């Protein structure tokens, strides 16, 4: 088994080419820097060859830590004796963008004695616009074979494996080493001259792109288009995913109803019903949201619009240490933090991606809604004014949503101003790709892969934590009374922690179980207060809470606590996987717990002073 390396600058169509050459479904997007991991697959036509897709980079002279890793990985791979060939993809429509990098790659391959072939992608776009590049002259100038291809149409792809085979058999003239000792400065000048001399003439592509940009970046039309498209994106997560989420929940319930009664042993029966099915359901229910959001974001990226949306919201977010690329992940976080964290892959600056991760869990996700609804119904008067147009409860809901978003921006704004030098940053230079019609099939495959990644990677962690909480809540009295379980005991142990907020052990237990998912808070309180189906009908539970000794001040403190605390094992699991750090979610969990506690304590004190 040998390997062929595929490398290219961002937005050169490399990932789509990788998919076409391997039949795999690496993420394909019309947006710079989308490849984060090194992917590999069997090269079609040469089944004894693994094609390895390297992250897109503009230069082998890296300026960020992440680029340095990618470049180091590439240079290490060149030393591998199993690597027999390097394929360097360039965008034929924008030769000047790719040639310097190509010459750097050729130089490194010459130094390591590896043959390299340049793939001039998007040749179909040139032909469709009666443009061309002088391929023969380019080959002669760089002493390297240049194949015209189109990853989108498939043109010229068969010649790639033929070229690799021919190189193996020495049937093709070996490239003449000529750049081995050439410094970057000279390569840059050579690339510039070659692009000027041999690149496509005419600006038909730029003119078309600029007309559309005139609409999408206009202060009025661009703003309307932006809000319309983002509204659709938001709807896709909230509304379009709901039928599939409901179907998953009801299917699991149906299977559980069929299987559970057949189990004789009561512990195994309870385990199957409450831990196994609840544990699987806890993460499977997120799959439709991840699938739909990944598909819609893919549509926006492939069409070229995402880069424009990034540009539009860059300025206001920059003030808070973020970038325009943080907007979509944060907006997604309003529905659910998990797809939002996945969407943050598009943030190329490591520093700003980290800050985006920090912001997302503070966005008011849909799992907070049942908690807010319960607490607002219990503690905020239902009075309305202005002829019934405005009510206190509506204002409270708006206020707590706004509070979450504002807190996210304040936290990232402060963090970005503290010890700035510790972060790894990239300047905001965004290549605006041409507008294109997206291909649906690769987008569907990518959405499927992202959902599969979530189930296989984060699902394990979520499942294990669910089991632990079940064991704590079930023993030693076999699920008879949650209050007498180990979890109940734990609730009493931590009671002094929540006592300064006016909360007793029952709310401590509910906060503990809500670590599985925030909405579990409602169900747990229902169980403790002896109310069946509190998630579906909150009224009896609201009445129970109102008649208990819990004050309005404590209710407000709980609202603020849930707006800030990172009470979600699924989010923490995805943060660990996507952030490639087990300490990041732990630090964020601890930091947000302290912040949530401090803020709710302050709210409790102020509200108590006001005799609420």
């Amino acid at each position: 088994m040998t390997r062929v390396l595929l490398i290219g600058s961002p937005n050169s169509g490399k990932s789509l080419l990788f998919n076409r050459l391997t039949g795999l479904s690496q993420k394909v997007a019309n947006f710079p820097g989308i490849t984060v991991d090194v992917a590999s697959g069997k090269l079609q036509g040469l089944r004894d060859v693994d094609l390895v897709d390297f992250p897109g980079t503009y230069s082998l002279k890296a300026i960020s830590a992440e680029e340095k890793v990618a470049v180091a990985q590439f240079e290490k791979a060149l030393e591998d004796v199993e690597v027999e060939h390097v394929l360097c993809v360039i965008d034929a429509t924008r030769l000047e963008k790719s040639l310097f990098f190509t010459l750097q790659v050729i130089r490194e391959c010459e130094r390591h004695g590896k043959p390299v072939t340049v793939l001039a992608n998007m040749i179909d776009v040139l032909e469709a616009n009666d443009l061309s590049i002088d391929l023969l002259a380019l080959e002669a100038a760089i002493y390297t074979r240049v194949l015209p291809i189109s990853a989108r149409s498939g043109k010229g792809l068969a010649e790639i494996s033929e070229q690799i085979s021919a190189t193996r058999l020495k049937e093709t003239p070996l490239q003449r080493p000529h750049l081995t000792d050439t410094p970057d400065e000279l390569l840059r000048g050579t690339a510039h001259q070659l692009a000027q001399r041999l690149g496509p003439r005419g600006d038909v592509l730029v003119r078309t792109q600029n007309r559309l940009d005139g609409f999408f970046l206009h202060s009025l039309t661009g703003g309307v288009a932006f809000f319309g498209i983002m509204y659709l994106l938001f709807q896709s997560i909230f509304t379009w995913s709901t039928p599939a989420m409901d179907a998953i929940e009801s299917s699991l319930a149906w299977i559980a109803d069929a299987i559970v009664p057949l189990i004789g042993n009561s512990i195994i029966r309870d385990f199957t019903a409450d831990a196994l099915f609840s544990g699987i359901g806890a993460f499977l229910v997120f799959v439709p949201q991840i699938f739909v959001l990944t598909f819609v974001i893919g549509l926006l990226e492939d069409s070229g619009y995402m880069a424009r949306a990034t540009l539009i919201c860059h300025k206001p977010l920059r003030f808070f240490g973020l970038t325009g690329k943080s907007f979509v992940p944060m907006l997604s976080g309003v529905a659910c933090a998990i797809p939002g964290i996945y969407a943050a892959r598009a943030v190329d600056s490591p520093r700003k991606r980290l800050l985006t991760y920090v912001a997302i869990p503070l966005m008011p996700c849909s799992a907070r809604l049942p908690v807010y609804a319960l607490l607002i119904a219990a503690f905020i008067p239902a009075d309305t004014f202005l002829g019934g147009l405005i009510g206190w409860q509506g204002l409270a809901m708006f206020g707590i949503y706004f509070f979450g978003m504002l807190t996210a921006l304040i936290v990232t704004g402060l963090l970005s101003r503290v010890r700035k030098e510790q972060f790894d940053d990239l300047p905001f230079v965004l290549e605006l790709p041409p507008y294109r019609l997206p291909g649906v099939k690769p987008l569907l495959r990518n959405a499927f892969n992202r959902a599969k990644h979530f189930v296989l990677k984060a699902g394990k962690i979520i499942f294990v934590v669910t089991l632990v909480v079940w064991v704590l809540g079930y023993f030693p009295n076999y699920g008879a009374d949650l209050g007498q379980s180990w979890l109940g005991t734990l609730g009493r142990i931590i009671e002094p922690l929540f006592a300064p907020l006016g909360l007793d052990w029952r709310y401590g237990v509910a906060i503990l179980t809500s670590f599985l998912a925030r909405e579990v808070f409602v169900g747990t309180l229902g169980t403790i207060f002896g109310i069946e189906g509190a998630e579906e009908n909150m009224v009896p539970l609201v009445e129970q809470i109102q008649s208990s000794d819990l004050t309005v001040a404590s209710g407000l403190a709980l609202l603020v606590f849930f707006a800030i605390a990172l009470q979600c094992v699924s989010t923490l699991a995805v943060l660990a996987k996507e952030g490639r750090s087990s300490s990041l979610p732990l630090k964020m969990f601890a930091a947000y717990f302290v912040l949530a506690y401090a803020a709710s304590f302050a709210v409790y004190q102020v509200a108590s002073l006001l005799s609420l």
Partner: protein
Amino acid sequence: METKATPDSLQTLWSLRRGEHCAIVGYDDLLAEAYKVRMMEFGFYPGEAVSCLQSPGFGAPKVYRVNNTIYSLDDEIADHILVEPFTA
């Protein structure tokens, strides 16, 4: 016919308005060396012609064309690129 402006009319790329053209003169000393190199890799060489294609409102990053590639730059970068505007 376009003629180049005199050297005393040097300005930054950020000051270019929509539809205006310029030639890059260089970079000021405040921009980190690594960023200068990266900008040149993108095609922003001294002497290269650049057009401002879009200048969205509210201080959003502007859109520039260099050769056949279109980039969006914010003021943190574009304010450090020294240019000589083309005058009609």
